[in-house]
């Protein structure tokens, strides 16, 4: 089995996915992709990613948020770090950030994000367990 870490990139913006897939692969990560919440849930089962980069507004306005909630409710997926990259807060009245209940993710990054910033966050959340937000049993 490959010891390369696998990142699942979930975004309905094909350009975002394509560019960041190339960036992450160039840094030695294996990358799987999905374009909405439903596909993300399927890929999590089949690909068993080590980390998820997640958009919020996809098929529906809160698609990614509901995916994060589902992933953290399930024992099998609770420990997977989630990095949200989204422009949802630029759309009034939405105003969100990491939250134990509503958005149980490790970090929230506003779009646009520079490739190096995303890579740094991926590295941080794959390497240092102590940086994660608290995850109790649901």
């Amino acid at each position, binding site marked *: 089995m490959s010891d390369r870490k696998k990142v699942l990139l979930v975004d309905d913006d094909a350009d975002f996915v394509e560019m960041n897939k190339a960036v992450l692969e160039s840094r030695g990560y294996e990358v799987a992709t999905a374009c909405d919440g439903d596909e993300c849930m399927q890929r999590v089962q089949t690909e068993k990613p080590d980390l998820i980069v997640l958009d*919020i*507004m996809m098929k*529906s*306005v*809160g698609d990614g*948020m*509901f995916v994060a*909630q589902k992933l953290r409710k399930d024992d099998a997926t609770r420990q997977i770090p989630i990095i949200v990259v989204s422009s*949802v807060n630029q*759309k009034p*009245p*939405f*105003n*969100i*950030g990491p*939250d*134990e*209940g*509503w*958005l149980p993710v490790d970090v929230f990054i506003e779009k646009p994000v520079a490739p190096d910033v995303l890579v740094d966050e991926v590295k941080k959340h794959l390497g240092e367990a102590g940086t994660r937000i*608290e995850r*109790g049993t*649901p």
Partner: protein
Amino acid sequence: MADTRIVVIGGSAAGPKAAAKARRLDQQAEITIVQREPEFSMASCGYPYYVGGFFDDRNKLICTPTGVVRDPKFFLNAKGITALARTEAVAIDRGAHTVACRRLDTGESLSIAYDKLVLATGASPFMPPIPGIELEGITTLQSMRDADYLRRVRDEGKLTRAIVVGGGLIGVETCEALELAGIEVTIVEMLPQILTFLDPEIAKLVENHINSKNARVITDNAVVEFIGQDGRLKAAKLADGTELPTELAVVAVGVRPNTQLAADAGLDVGRGIRINEFMQTSDPDIYAVGDCIEVTHLLTGQPFHAPYGDLANLEGRVAGQNVIQGNGVKFPGSIGTGVCKVFDYTAGCTGLSEAAAARAGIGNLVAAVATGLDRPPFMGGKPIIMKMVADATTGRLLGFQAVGLGDASKRIALAAMAIMGKQTVGDLVNADLPYAPPYSPAVDPLIMMAHVLENKMLGRMKGISAGEVKAKLDAGDDILLLDARGPDEFEQMRLDVGETLIPLGALRKRLGELPQDKAKEIVCYCKISLRGYEAALVLEANGHTNVKVMEGGVLAWPYAKTVAAT
């Protein structure tokens, strides 16, 4: 030397406090408040009570205790402060020491120069991207506009059903306000409990109280869609598929600090704008106060967001002093003290709950629950259910929670001072508090709580929480539950989980009815578990070796119980 120029961005609580304090210390300084809203110094914590009809005059939210509305004229005449309403700060030029502003009514731009700047930009409601959230009938309760809207809903009296999304402080206060307006209210909380500053078994008691009104609480479920008709809300769909018909939804799932202006100016931002104990940001000429900052938790040492009106005023006072006199005074941080009214209940906490302490990695905890009366029974005393958390080694008090019909607020305040003063359970055991029957029983419930925890720490009492007893019953464990109350009390209210009633007064004569196996687990309790404790001592003296006391008694039992019809 030219007069010092102080600019304050934000005119709600912390900002005006900083400006007023600065003025008191320096009559010459040029002081300007920039405020986006039309009002100043709003008592925003009072909004639910205005909505709920506790008072009718809207101006009471924005006037001084003598009844003068705090408007720009008031600030200029009484305080000598220039207050610019409907003015938004759009950028800070730290090099030039200027703030670029825009008058919202005219679109006019202006630049205001500062020597010292105070950021009090507040917080905004957390608004989750739920489909349909733009429908008419969905609101927050964060601004005067929101309060006006909900008050109008009350006065019109047309709506019959509402939901409150979020079971935090604002959520439960809003629930009460709407229920008092004759509306049937449902709180939908995503986490397994409401009021997460409380431990689950204590929060459950508050939930039960809300459910006893024209309101109900749904936990562990979330709104996934708002469904509308002709642009108006008509139902909320939950994660489990339930559809709740509703005409009004108040979203109260917390607030997020407004840090953009600070971040754009290159100031350090964490869970809020980062400040030191002088309320100074990473730029020594810029201070920050109120809901936009992160503060240090004095027990965990960790930064956290504490958007409370009382702290905002204290922080504003410190910043106001420091911008005039140099960094002479400090705001050390917070222990997270809070209280709320939930119908006839008071619910609050100070310091850490047992769960929060565990989350913060504080090990070696000891905690106990106890029930006490706020006054003697002959003075109409009402119960308070309390939980105290301490360091098991040092005895240092780490947290205190109290809920119930009695005056819990006074005990929370006392415990807050004990925690701030680094006191131990041992210190509280002999506290000299004011006593007279109209105000408290001879042994104040807080002291009684300390006695219970001390008994537990010394091994005199083996306590077991209601939650642990419930878990044992659910698991089918072979335990004997011994109710030590009188038959009348038993008739009125009982757990009905297969317990045995032996009144304390009869226990010594009826020891033969107890299991011959002296190692069998017996859990004793009464109404508040004082008689339960005494029953346990009787059993232990008679050779029973596995006897526990259910902490807090029947009153702290948060699960279903049988209550006689009155």
